[in-house]
């Protein structure tokens, strides 16, 4: 195949690819993103290929290796087309049975299909699984159909048609007007209207302009950008080329964090193929437009996700943010006008052009249009990536899609927006999610991480975790962030250690406000959010730590003790053998005792104590005090 030099050639190439696909042909699709590979998908691919060869079927059955399908918990999995039968949590030894039944006999290998934990109802198609039912998978659906290493799969699904339309049927103003009409807002966190952002950059007079795709997805607990880049890199690339045409940029950069090696690999391959077929480089699709994209691998610094820091990093410097204005649209990369958007935002652009702004604007709420991908993780039954229309409620996400809390425990809070976001309590579960409602609740949309917390999660510990994170990742350029976050961590440590004082709560709030007001960049300005929201919604928990010296969730090490119930202990030696610091004394069939002076509170004893015995437990507050008092009295007696 040669370069594509005209939209008509693109159309005929698409028909050619489609003609090669027999609708009746069996296709085995194996999901193999990072999660899939970590769960063993590579061994599944080997097993499938071997088995097909053994049965002499390798020419009759197509094997397609794709990116992540979203329901990470069911990895490794595969789908057999055209029946769409979905098999989950596979081991290599399961493959012969699946090939025998699903491929040769056209039956369903029912032992490997999905079964609902509660209703025990089986679902043999992916679309019938409750996890997928309420989703609206506009961006992620194609991950099922595309081998990210082969551009033809993307072209077969109308890939690069939007680009052809933009280049040949639309002016740059027209493209921007369409994106603006669609109501697309930045998916990276702040939610700035994308069309307006482009227009500002387009209007700046300069012969050199840049665009950047921010794929430095550093928020812990968020990985939708990784999934898009791994599973459908061309959608992001196409969005960028359209954006470059609208703004008038000649060069683009995709900045991917180094922690995503598979995404780096797939993007670099996709760029090569796009260049080969004439979607990048000189005279794109035979038009007069020229544009190319470079791939930059990050080097491990959370702050590089901030736009001005990211640009400094591309320039080969420390990822320090700088004062704005001037905004990147005026003076960005190497002082030239630069437009920067995040991965998910770029991936929405071809969709808007292909389906039209009116269609797109019908999805979502008044102020937030389209869908948003969230990563639903933490103490939830169904973990994975979910794509939902804006305006869906938290309850629908947690219970209908997420299947509720693990182990039927009580829902406590949902953390959105990563270290810049906040914790939303159970009372707000009916909140319809969009940029503005989340901001009103004290959190932010952020990049879309949603971490579910149950009654065993301590909110002081959560605040401490995030502040530890931001404090470590603070670049150190401005004082409020550098010193302020450090002080917040120290106060939180003090509270978690049981040494908190009443005045600490006021200090936390005052300091948080100062950091928000005085910091240079988004990292510092939002760093105190986890503290402020937990103070707002979970003040009682802070007070319990300070006044009662109690950690209600039994998490903070300084406030708990492990103890063995002499009535329940059968003297099985399990905890004694597993204690890493030999803090448990006892003999076979005699009650074991923990030496609290030696105990490091690692919890190994609690984990190994058999469930039916459950002699080990955690205590806090008064109970802890009395147990420690008894223990020390006994020591004195000895």
């Amino acid at each position, binding site marked *: 195949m040669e370069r594509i030099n005209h939209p008509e050639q693109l159309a005929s190439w698409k028909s050619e690819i489609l003609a090669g696909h027999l609708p009746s042909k069996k296709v085995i699709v194996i999901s193999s993103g990072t999660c899939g590979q970590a769960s063993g998908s590579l061994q599944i691919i080997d097993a499938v290929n071997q088995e097909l060869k053994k049965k002499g079927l390798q020419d009759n059955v197509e094997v397609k290796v794709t990116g992540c399908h979203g329901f990470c918990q069911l990895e490794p999995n595969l789908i057999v087309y055209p029946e769409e039968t979905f098999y989950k949590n596979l081991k290599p030894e399961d493959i012969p049975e699946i090939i025998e039944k699903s491929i040769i006999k056209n039956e369903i290998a029912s032992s490997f299909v999905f079964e609902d934990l509660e209703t025990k109802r089986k679902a043999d198609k992916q679309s019938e699984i409750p996890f997928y039912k309420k989703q609206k998978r506009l961006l992620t659906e194609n991950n099922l159909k595309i081998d990210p290493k082969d551009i033809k799969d993307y072209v077969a699904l109308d890939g690069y048609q939007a680009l052809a339309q933009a280049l040949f049927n639309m002016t740059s103003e027209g493209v921007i007007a369409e994106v603006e009409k669609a109501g697309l807002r930045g998916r990276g966190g702040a939610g700035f209207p994308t069309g307006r952002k482009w227009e500002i950059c387009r209007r700046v007079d300069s012969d050199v302009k840049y665009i950047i795709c921010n794929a430095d997805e550093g928020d*812990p607990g968020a*990985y939708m950008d990784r999934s898009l880049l791994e599973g459908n890199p061309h959608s992001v690339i196409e969005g960028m080329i359209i954006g470059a045409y609208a703004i008038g940029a000649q060069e683009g950069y995709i900045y991917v964090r180094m922690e995503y090696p598979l995404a780096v690999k797939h993007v670099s391959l996709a760029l090569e193929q796009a260049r080969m077929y004439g979607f990048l480089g000189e005279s794109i699709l035979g038009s007069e437009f020229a544009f190319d994209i470079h791939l*930059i691998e990050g080097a491990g610094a959370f702050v590089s996700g901030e736009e001005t820091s990211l640009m400094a990093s591309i*320039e080969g410097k420390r990822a320090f943010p700088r004062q704005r204005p001037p905004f990147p649209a005026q003076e960005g990369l190497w002082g030239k006008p630069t437009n920067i958007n995040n991965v998910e935002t770029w991936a929405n652009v071809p969709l808007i052009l292909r389906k039209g702004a009116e269609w797109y604007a019908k999805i979502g709420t008044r102020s937030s249009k389209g869908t948003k991908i969230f*990563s639903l993780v933490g103490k939830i039954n169904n973990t994975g990536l979910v794509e939902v229309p804006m305006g869906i409620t938290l309850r629908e996400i947690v219970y209908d899609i997420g299947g509720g809390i693990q182990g039927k425990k009580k829902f406590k809070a949902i953390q959105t927006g990563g270290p810049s976001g906040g914790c939303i309590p159970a009372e707000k579960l009916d909140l319809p999610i969009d940029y503005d409602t989340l901001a009103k609740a004290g959190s932010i949309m952020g990049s879309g991480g949603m971490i579910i917390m149950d009654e065993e*999660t301590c909110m002081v510990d959560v605040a401490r975790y995030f502040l530890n994170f931001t404090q470590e*990742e603070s670049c150190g350029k401005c004082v409020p962030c550098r010193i302020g976050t450090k002080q917040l961590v120290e106060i939180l440590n003090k509270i978690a250690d049981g040494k908190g004082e009443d005045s600490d709560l006021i200090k936390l709030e005052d300091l948080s406000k100062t950091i928000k007001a005085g910091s240079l960049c988004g990292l510092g300005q939002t760093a105190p959010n986890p503290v402020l929201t937990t103070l707002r919604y979970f003040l009682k928990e802070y007070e319990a730590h300070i006044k009662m010296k109690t950690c209600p969730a039994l998490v903070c090490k300084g406030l708990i003790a492990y103890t063995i119930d002499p009535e329940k202990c059968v003297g099985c030696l399990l905890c004694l053998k597993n204690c890493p610091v030999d803090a448990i004394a006892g003999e076979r069939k005699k009650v074991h005792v923990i030496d609290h002076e030696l105990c490091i509170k690692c919890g190994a004893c609690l984990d190994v104590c058999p469930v039916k015995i459950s002699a080990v437990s955690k205590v806090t507050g008064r109970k802890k005090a009395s147990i420690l008092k008894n223990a020390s009295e006994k020591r004195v007696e000895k």
Partner: protein
Amino acid sequence: MENILKDFEQDQKELIHILHRVQEELGYVSPQAIASIAKHLKISENEIFSVLTFYKAFTLEPRGKHVVTVCMGTACHVRGAPRLVDDASRELEVGVGQTTPDKHFTLETVNCLGCCAIGPVVVVDGKYHSYVKRMDAIIKEYSEGR
């Protein structure tokens, strides 16, 4: 070093790419490497030192034979990652970011690998271990020849 540097333009924008390559080939960034990069890019050694110490990807000392990385993302955190770090640190008798005296293991943490659904996650030499409950088994697996 010359072999590495010939692939790169003499422009500061290449600095991070060069450091990645050096780290990959030598396992760390040596003082000699810094000197050669400075000469190639015509910037001061100070500048290079400031950039390389800013990013976590680069080290001034060689790492151990096996690099054990515990993910400390939020999802892994609520599922017990802090204990895994404590366990690993006790088992290996080194702190986070340190290498055992026999240069067999380096213990590191990362702030999220984006495989939150299968956490807690521990990566050893690029291989992902999911739903990790205990560190001793993983460490034992890589202790051969120690």
